[in-house]
Structures are given as C-alpha cells and as structure tokens.
C-alpha cells in the first residue's frame, strides 16, 4: 500500500429531492481492490458515478492524487485535485465499466477499442499495442473482428472492461462486473481483475456477490441507504459482525416444537431459535454449552439425531442480517 489515491469527502447526492447518498466519506488506497457491498438501490452505482464526476454531488468533494501528471500552476503544491474542477484530467485517471456494458454494438471489438483509445489521445503505436495486450488478456483476440453487439454476454462484459482499460487508467471502477454471468465466467473475470490489480491498477468495485467480494477484495465498504456504515478488511468485518454461531439439527421423528420448549427452559444464552424446513436452527455465542444441552434434550425426548452442523456465518449472512428489511431483494 502506497498511500491514499482517492479521497471521498462527505459526498451527498439527491435525485429529485430524494437523498441517495448521505454524507459519504471514504479513502481509497493505491493498489487495493475496494469492494462496495450494499443491497439494490442502496446507492452503489450512484456513488461510483459521483466519484468519476459523471454525477455532480450537491455537497462534498472527491479528490484524487495526480502524481504530478497534471501540468497546471499550483498543482505541485497540493498532490490532490478535485474530480469536478479537473474533470477532463480526472477522466484519464479513471476507467469505468458500468453495470450495463457501454460500447458501440455496430463496431467490431477492435474498432471499439481503437475508437475509445483514440478519444484519450493515445498515439497510434501505443493504441495498437494496448489494444493487442488487452485483447489477449481478455481472451477476445479471436473475436476482435466480430461486431460487439453480436458477442455473448460474458464477452461483452470483458470487452467493456477492456474498453475501460484501454488508456491504462490508475483507477479501474467496476460496477457489478459479474452480475448475470455463469460461475466459470465469474471466476474468469475475477482472475482478470486480480491480474489487472497486480499490474498496479487500483480497483473499486460494487457487487452483490458477497462471497466473491470476500475472497478477492482487500477492503470492503458496506453501504446501507446511501451511507457507508463500515469499511474494513473482510476478516475484520467478519470478526466484528459474526460473534454468534449457528447450530442446525435434524432429528427423527422430529418433534421440534417440544425440543424447542425444553431447550428454552434449560439454557439462557440462546440468541435465536427457529424451526426451518430442514430442522432446528439455533444461534448462540456459547456454542459448547448449547450443544451439550441439545444432546441431553434429544436423549430425554427419545429423538434420534440425524444431522448436526455448527457454522460461523459468512458475509452473506451478515449482509442479510444488515438488510433484513430488504431480504426479498437481496441476491
């Protein structure tokens, strides 16, 4: 980690009087992969677009490190400049692959890349070599002369990322890069992101797929209703939010009601107890004691233990917990 590359200071954004982003502050470290998680409609896309200057927030500022590349009087005094005041320079810093791929469907893969590259003012040689490198990296070389609109969804996604990377941006922004893709393609995209990140590109991404974010991101920001409620490494987040463990039991004949009643009487430190279709689900911070009691109760009631499972919850569970009211929407 070589310091902060992007600073988001108290950004607020409303659409038609509805506040979507509420005072969001966040720092992005150079070279990290920052994941944004949050339920649908929580404002992830809005945040990403505000970062790049696509939306202009009514309050707050987004400042990025210009690495001395900005040739302007007084620029050397402050290493950070505002995305909004240096809009066109900021655009060369960011590469953005949005939720829906953005390119010309009537141009071929290669034409798209060359076109967008040329808009960034790349010289012919650099443009050609960047295009070739990215085509190979994204595995699109064999499709380079196909019309972009005729590509499969996965290929379109890869082309979109390739277009976002054509000018070799310092920060790559991916808005749900793996949505509606099959698991193999998802893994492929993630490995690509890793590769890109290893080459020194900072990545900010938003996703619903929490397990993936958990494994690939160096830090995660949790967004709820337009506010960042926490930012940390995945393991720390888990430790913070996942103190309880879950015990699920399957028994025969399975008179869970009476088991439940007995357990309630016997032990005090059970957080929740539910009867699901698979059996009994108990969460508790004192797993050892609860397990003992459970086995005892089963013996008493003449129930035969069929299956027992003890687990620590992942971020998925954490996520559902956080957004209980949005349970239906969560992926």
């Amino acid at each position, binding site marked *: 980690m070589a310091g902060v590359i992007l600073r988001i200071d108290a950004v607020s954004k409303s659409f038609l009087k509805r506040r979507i982003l509420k005072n969001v502050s966040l720092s992005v470290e150079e070279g990290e992969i920052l994941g944004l998680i949050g339920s649908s409609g929580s404002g992830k896309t809005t945040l990403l677009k505000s970062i790049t200057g696509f939306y202009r927030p009514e309050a707050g500022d987004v400042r990025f490190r210009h690495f001395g590349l900005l040739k302007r009087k007084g620029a050397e005094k402050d290493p950070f400049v505002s995305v909004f005041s240096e809009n066109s320079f900021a655009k*060369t810093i960011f590469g953005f692959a*949005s939720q829906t791929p953005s390119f010309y469907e009537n*141009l071929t893969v290669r034409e798209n890349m060359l076109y*967008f590259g040329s808009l960034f*003012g790349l010289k012919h040689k650099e443009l050609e070599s960047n295009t070739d490198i990215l085509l190979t990296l994204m595995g699109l070389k064999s499709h380079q002369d196909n019309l972009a609109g005729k590509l499969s969804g996965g290929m379109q996604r890869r082309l979109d990322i390739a277009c976002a990377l054509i000018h070799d941006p310092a920060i790559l922004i991916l808005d749900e890069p793996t949505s509606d893709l099959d698991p193999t393609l998802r893994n492929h995209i993630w490995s690509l992101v890793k590769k890109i990140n290893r080459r020194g590109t900072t990545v900010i991404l938003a996703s619903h797929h929490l397990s993936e974010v958990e494994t690939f991101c160096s830090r995660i920001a949790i967004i709820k209703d337009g506010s960042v409620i926490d930012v940390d490494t995945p393991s720390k987040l888990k430790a913070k939010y996942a103190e309880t463990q879950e015990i699920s039991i399957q028994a025969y004949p399975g008179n869970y009601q009476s088991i439940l009643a007995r357990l309630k009487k016997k032990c005090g430190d059970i957080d929740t107890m539910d009867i699901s279709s698979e059996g009994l689900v108990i969460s508790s911070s004192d797993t050892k004691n609860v397990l003992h009691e459970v086995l005892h109760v089963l013996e008493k009631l003449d129930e035969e233990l069929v299956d027992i499972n003890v687990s620590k919850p992942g971020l998925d569970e954490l996520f559902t917990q956080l957004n209980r009211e949005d349970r239906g929407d969560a992926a």
Partner: protein
Amino acid sequence: MRFTSIIKKNFKLLLRSKSSAFILLAGPILIILIVGLFFNGKSAYDLSLGYCAPVPNDLTRSFISSLEKNGFVVYDFNNESSCTDKIKQGVIHTCILFPQDFKVSNDQSTELRFIVDYSRVNLVYKVIDAVSEIIEFETREVSYSLTNTLISRIDSTLSGLEKQEELEERISGLEVDISKDFDSLKSGVDSIDFSTGSVSLRSLRSKLGNSQDSLDDLIVKYGEFSEYSYEMLDELEGYLDSNKSDEIRAELDLMSQEVASLQNASLDDLNASLQELSDADERLTGLFERLQENERLADSVKKIVSRTEEHLSSFRDSLSSLSKGTSGMRERLEEIDITRAESIVSPVNTKIEPLMSESSNFQFAFPFLVILLVMFASLMISSTLIIFERSSRAVFRNFMTPIDRKMFISAHFLTVLLIVLLQSLLILLISYLAMKFALFSSILSVVAVIFVASVFFIALGLMIGFVFASQEGAMMASLVLGSTFLFISNLVVPLESISQGLAGIIRFNPFIIFSEFLRKALLFNLPLSDAVLELSILLLIALVILVPALLGRNVFHDAKRYWVKRKGKRPENKLRGNADKDWLDDL
C-alpha cells in the same frame, strides 16, 4: 486524431445501420432516378382539349389546325355539355367554345370561352398558357390581315396625293409661263412709240430737194422707219386683223421698193419722186391715222391683259394654298413611321427561346431536386446520428472520455456535412456529365449555396435529434419538417393559388430561398457577390440554432427540467429508459 476518429466512427455507424445506410445511399440514387425520369419524360404527357364550334368556318378551322400543329390532341364536340362532361371525366383538359358566328367584324368583339377544371390547379395553368399562346397567335394573324388592309388604303391615298401634287406643280409652272408671256406682251405694247409717227415728212421733203445726201439720208431714215414698222407689225401680230397687217406690210413693201428705186434715180426724177413722196406722205398720214387707231386698240388690249393678270394672280394664290394643304396632309401621312402591318399588330415581337437545348421542365426542377436532397439528407442524417449517439450504449463511455460535448457535436456536424456535400457533388457531377450543365462557370456560387443549405438543415436536424428521444420520433419530425418546407413551395402548389398571407410566409421558406439561389447560379451564372447577403443571413440563423447544441445546454432540456421541478415527476426514465443517458442533462 480524436476528431477524425469520431468522424470515422460516425461513418461506420451510419453505414452499418440499415435505415441510415438507406438514406445515405438511396437518397442520391432516388434523386438521380427522379431526375432521369424528368429528363426522359419530355413528351410523355400530351395535353388534350376539346372544342365546340356550332358553325365551323375558315377562322375556326385555322384555330383548330394551329392547335393541332402545336401538339395538342384536339377533339370535336357538338355541344358544350358533352365537352364539359369529358373534362369532368378527365379525358380532356380544357374546352374551347367558339361563338355561334365566329368572325371578325366592326360591330361586335368576338369572344372565345375556355372551360377548365380548376381542381387540377397545376395543369390548368399549363393548359391555359399553352392554348392562349396559340390563340393569341391566331388572333394576331386575324388582326394582322385587318391592319394590312388599313395600311394598303393609306398607301394608295398617299400615292394619289403625290400624283395631285405633280399636277399642281405642272399648273403652277404653266402659270409662270403665262405670266411671263403677259409681261413681255405688256412691255412690248408699252414700248411701241407711236410718237415716231410725227416725224416731219414735210421738212424732210424740203430738205430732200437740197441734196442727194439728204436723199440718201432720207433713204436710210426710211429704211429705219420701215424696219421699225415691220417690227411693230410683227409685234402687233395677233392683235391686228391679219388682213390689215398684211395690207400694211404690202404697202410698206411697196414703199421700200419705191425708196430703193429712189436711190438710183436722178435728181430729175427726184421731183417726181417727191411728188410721189408727198403721195406717200399722204398715204402715210392715212396710215398713221390708222396706226393711232391701233394705239387705242393696244390700250384696250393692255387693259384686258392686266385684268387677266389679276385673275391669274388670284388663281395662283388659291393654287398655292391648295398645294400647301396637300403637302401638309402628305407630311402628316408620311410622319407615320411604321407602315408594316406585322409591326403594328405586334409591335414587340416576342420569341420564347429555351435557354439551353434541354427540356425546360428539367431545368426548372433540377435545382429544386438538389436542394431537396440536401434538405432531406441533412435533416434525416443529422437527427439520426444524434439519436444513434443518444440511444447508444456507448453514451456512458463517450462521456467518460476527456472529449467535451462541443467536439462531439462538431464532429457529428462535420460528418453529416461531408456526407451531404459528397452526395451533392455526386449529383452535380452526374448532371454535368450526362446533361452538360454549365457547372463550372458558376461553381463558386453553386458550392456556396449548397454549403449554406447543408449547414442550415443540418443545424435543424441536430436540433430535432436533441428534442426527440427515439429514432422513430426524430425520423417523423425530420420528414414532417422537410415535407412542410416542400409543400409550401412553388414546386408542389403554384404560388398563384395560395392565399396572400401564406404566400408571404412562403417567401421565407428556406427551401425556396436555397432552390432559387441554386437555380440562378446554375442557369444564369449568378455571381456569388449577389447572394452573399442572403446566404450570410441564413448561415447566421443556422449558427444560432447550433449554439445551444454546442454549448451543451439546450432550451428544450432546460424547459423539461423546469417542468420536472414543478411537477415533481421523473420523466427521465420513462422517456429514455436508462438513467445513464442523462448526461446530456447533467452536464
């Protein structure tokens, strides 16, 4: 680099989309096709007309035959109603009704009636034009012959007058001769000195006796006298009785003989002679007396002569006033310079010649067709391109590049301008090669007009692209706008049949303005300097339309935002379906 790559991309997009490629390629081809049809269809359409002549005569027949000669298909009808029926059915285009008694006379003006179907406005003017031209020609023929008679009458009168003048001259010449005769007669009569008769013969006789010399003298004197007497006699001839003069002459002759004989006679004889002389003296005295009688006669002659003279001079006066009158009349007649019947009937002879050898229809239509192409191509391609960009998935990525909106719009603008100019160039080239248009003599004006027209209509098209959300909407709007320009023009509906107010507006129809300029440039080599002002104004209007687009804001979006704020609704997603495309608003 950036700019050209946007233009290159635009070309690819336009060519790869079926609908826009159609406009791009089919537009010029269609226009060329229409032009070709115009070019070939010179005689495809014949005008036919009917006529109804109750009593056909030579005059009607000559009208009809000249109509036929001029390429009309002419039908004969027995009565008016059957003729008008055929107009209603569309078989014939007009009906000419000859009057019962179609002839040219003094007491009535002959009237030809035309029945036309005004619902077929375009045709009517054509028919009336063509027919009336021929009828006019025929009428001219008639009045020509009438005038001719008139003029020949005047001519014969003039020559009669000339003859009369000749006569007058001859009379006046005669009169001068007569008056000269009178003058000499008068002076003759005046100069007769009757007093010579008082020569004293008696003293002469006494002297005679003195010498031979005096005899000789006498003889000479006598010779003089007799000569004089002869002269006088000669002069008096005509006034005296021929008997009398002869008598005198004979006596004079006798006397001369006697005098001559005297010369040779001796002095002796002289006395005898003297005796004889005194006889002669007596006789002479008698003669003298008779002569004095004659003097009185001469006086009366003189009186008669002077009276005659008076008559003569009054005759001369009236003769001169008469000749003055005729010469004035002749002068006035001669003052009429134009004496040819053709020049009186049609003082200004107009011969309508086509400017070039091709069909005038085509000449008229070609500039309109070129501007038509420029108009529709500009409107449709520019609006399509904007819609392409706006509805494209690439909007977001375009926004994420450091290219500002001005450059995008300029590149779009230039793309369409290039296409339209290329299309126009193609058409002009084909027209030049196929129809030998004098293109290069006015190439500057032609290019200027096409350029300004393109800029103008592209600006409008871009505006349409921004106002309408969907490609269908933009297409419809371009078509409606283009058609409106087209329909309120002279090309479809003749200006004559349009109400005054509307006709005033039509003058400001840019389509008309550009077409007129192009027509003048193509056909009449209009110099560029003549059109500079108007073209600059139109260019300025185009730029004014372009400004909001270039500045990244346009009035319509501002208006929409205002509306949204007031109503508190969110039409964006409803209109566009994709919030990403709002960058057009959010700039």
